[in-house]
């Protein structure tokens, strides 16, 4: 959806994160949207005794980064999830299930103590790397240390940089201390893949190790072959420690265009489409395809209008309120996106355990918007554009070029705003430009962007909303709208230091009310992308808490 049907070579337009936290009630959503094995009707046939068959997964972006600790985009995770494992893994219902670890540490089981400063993890027995070497606590220690190693191009050190005094206390036991209490670290580790020490330490420079082109992990599939620009083939790891794998081979097929990808799904050249999914304009047609299951899946990504709060007009809260009141959300969703997406008021996905469903609902009301502006002193001038103290009410909305549906969305907004005296220009740029300094150094006026405001699957948005996280000012963080709010800062600090879910929930609900009132971002909708698979494929299960729905591919198989 972020990258609709165009020829544009694609940067991942703003990523689609499908990760959510420890949700308590997300199962209901799944059932409601008719997903999950349960919903497939009669009980599925049992999996084969020995891995057999192959699945071709269609992707509209090419996975190219195979070291899971180095910079990569979402689509790269389709590979990481098969080849590697994390210590624990988030399920569709939001619970964390131990994978390489024997249990998920908590204050209750003593794994986390001293108010979050001391951590201890027991690992599962009998796991081997694909090359036969045993998996031990040394691998976990090596992984955490490598992330912080000065010369290593680690993807992110958020959270990891707080880890100190890593000690291997037994072959399968590891402990460390944190510089400060940081609750989101549990979630971060659910997305931190463990790499083999015995292979990487041999390399002179882990940045250029041969491992990065032919990864070796503990996951259900082993690295097979890669035809760059076309496909990657993975083969079953018959010694896998978990359930499965039931498929003998998995092919990740790159088709660089969503329309073309959909065409190949229709003709059966690919068995399923995940990730960027089926373009909205094909949804109605796709659900009718014989022999295909096409589903709207839950996603944690939000489409927002991101104002630059240093812009002379957009810095005025009244302006943001008026803009918000005059966005015809329903028209945008119904017309441009064929009714797929879900209007939202929060910066948090609606499936999150911390989501506040009682936020005031936006409704399309141009008259109200006009009144807000009149009251705030933005008067119509001769040219029809409102002015206040010599500042005209005009700004530009930027998004990635080639995103056809977003462009349509912009044009609808433009028409609505024009009627109440707001002049909006469209200033779109190629992805590589827009997400460069233009974005990171807050040089935009406003952006139409699909993004997420969490830390992996934790609700903590401190790096997006904290006033110490403005890259243009402090050189750190990802608060590109430059929001500064002392009350929000205090709430977020409290949230990071609290481990009790109920108390955290209260904190984040307060924050949602504040964000809805202040509008540092104008939330438009929560994505509901469309994925599809061939009938007969058993085990496909959308997971809002996984970055890609290949998260459980080890358990897929074909009904015979």
């Amino acid at each position: 959806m972020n990258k609709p049907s165009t020829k544009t070579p694609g940067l991942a337009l703003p990523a689609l994160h499908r990760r959510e936290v420890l949700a308590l009630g997300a199962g209901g959503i799944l059932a409601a949207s008719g997903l999950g094995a349960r919903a497939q009707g009669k009980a599925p046939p049992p999996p084969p005794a020995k891995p057999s068959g192959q699945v071709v997964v269609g992707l509209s972006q090419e996975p190219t980064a195979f070291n899971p600790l180095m910079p990569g985009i979402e689509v790269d995770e389709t590979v990481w999830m098969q080849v590697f494992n994390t210590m624990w893994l988030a399920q569709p219902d939001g619970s964390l299930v131990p994978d390489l670890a024997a249990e998920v540490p908590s204050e209750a089981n003593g794994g986390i103590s001293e108010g979050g400063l001391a951590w201890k993890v027991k690992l599962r027995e009998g796991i081997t790397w694909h090359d036969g070497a045993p998996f031990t606590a040394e691998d976990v220690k090596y992984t955490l240390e490598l992330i912080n190693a000065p010369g290593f191009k680690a993807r992110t050190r958020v959270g990891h940089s707080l880890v100190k005094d890593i000690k291997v206390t037994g072959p399968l036991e590891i402990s460390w201390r944190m510089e400060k209490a940081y609750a989101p670290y549990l979630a971060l580790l659910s997305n931190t893949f463990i790499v083999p020490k015995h292979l990487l330490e041999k390399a002179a420079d882990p940045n250029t190790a041969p491992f990065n082109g032919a990864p070796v992990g503990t996951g259900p599939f082993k690295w097979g072959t890669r035809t760059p620009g076309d496909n990657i083939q993975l083969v079953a790891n018959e010694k896998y420690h978990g359930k499965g794998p039931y498929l003998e081979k998995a092919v990740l097929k790159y088709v660089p265009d969503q329309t073309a990808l959909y065409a190949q799904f229709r003709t059966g050249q690919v068995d399923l489409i995940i990730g960027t999914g089926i373009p909205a304009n094909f949804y109605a047609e796709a659900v009718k395809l014989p022999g295909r299951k096409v589903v709207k899946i839950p996603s944690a990504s939000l489409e927002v209008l991101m104002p630059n709060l240093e812009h002379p007009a957009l810095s005025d809260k009244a302006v943001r309120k008026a803009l918000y009141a005059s966005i015809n959300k329903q028209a945008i969703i119904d017309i441009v996106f064929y009714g797929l997406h879900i209007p939202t008021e929060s910066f948090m996905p609606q499936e999150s355990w911390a989501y506040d469903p009682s936020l005031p609902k936006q409704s399309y009301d141009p008259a109200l918007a006009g009144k807000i502006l009149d009251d705030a002193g933005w008067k119509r001038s001769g040219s029809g554009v409102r002015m206040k103290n010599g500042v005209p009410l005009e700004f530009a909305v930027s998004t990635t070029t080639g995103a056809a549906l977003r462009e349509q969305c912009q044009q609808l907004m433009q028409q609505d705003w024009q009627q109440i005296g707001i002049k909006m220009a469209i200033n779109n740029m190629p992805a590589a430009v827009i997400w460069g300094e233009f974005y990171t150094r807050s040089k935009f006026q406003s952006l139409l962007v699909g993004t997420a405001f969490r830390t992996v699957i934790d609700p903590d948005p401190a790096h997006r909303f904290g006033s110490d996280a403005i890259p243009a000012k402090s050189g750190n963080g990802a608060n590109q709208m430059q929001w500064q709010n002392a009350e929000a800062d205090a709430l977020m600090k409290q949230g990071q230091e609290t481990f009790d879910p109920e108390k955290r929930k209260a904190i984040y609900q307060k924050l949602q009310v504040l964000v809805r009132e202040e509008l540092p971002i104008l939330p438009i909708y929560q994505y509901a992308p469309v994925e599809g698979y061939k009938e007969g494929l058993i085990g496909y299960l959308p997971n809002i808490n996984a970055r890609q729905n290949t998260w459980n591919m080890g358990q897929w198989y074909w009904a015979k």
Partner: protein
Amino acid sequence: MIAFLLRRLGQSLLLLLIVSVIGFAILHLAPGGPMSQFAAGGDMTQADLDRIAEQLGLNRPLPVQYVEWLWRMLSGDWGVSYRDQQPVLHIIASHIGATLELMLTSTLLAMLIGAWVGILGAIRRYSLFDSLATVGAMIALSIPTFWFGLVVIYVFSVGLGWLPSGNRYTMGDGSFLNQVHHLIGPCIVLALVSTAVWSRYMRSSMLEVVNQDYIRTARAKGVPERQILMRHALRNALLPMITITGLHVPTLLSGALVTETVFTWPGMGRLFLDSISYRDYPVVMGILMFTAVLVLMGSLLADLLYGVADPRISRSGR
């Protein structure tokens, strides 16, 4: 001859150096950078992005980066892709096959059809066929390649269902026939322009030969017209045609890029587009240099063959 070769080689190296400076400057002065793709997601902080940019050496002054790149290049090291950490030459090598397959087959197709149309046009000069061929070639040269590709997909894939709408082969079916089936659409599309160019050159080349003395002599001796054309005229007209192929390399590469995009063909064109949009500098530079070498080789070949075909051609200038 050897002196000529050496001078041309020297000139080519100088050109490559200029090409590399232009390419490097354009790329690195462009706004945005390789970090953009990671910034969009929102889960990497500015500190992470800045650290990686520094680790890649992107913060150093441009001339320093250029000289380092050039130095490595001279020692045969084309650098490593930012995206997939593979050596650039390896990446180019793994995409060039698909592109060459497309370029060679379409050139072959264009030669056959183009030569046929051109010869026939020359024989029946000013006939209805000749006029139609002329107009047709003009239109072929004016159709946007990508649009023609869309039309081919619409008619033959969507409408008639005869051809696949993209890809080089069906996953899991690597048979030769399957590959040929996939090749037909893009091959026709890419051949369109070349066919037009070929037919026009072939026609004029034939006309030139036909008017030469030895043909007139042959004709006067009563050699059958058909034999004159096939034996004498065609042979002499073909050689200069080969030179056209050499000069046609850049056009063909451009066409291949567009065709690959329309037919999701996993070749150099796709690689270039992806690399530009991800600002994968080493790969983009690699492809630019690689294509420049191809282009220069093409024109060198053209000159050499031209010289062989017609020793009167001056080797100065150009």
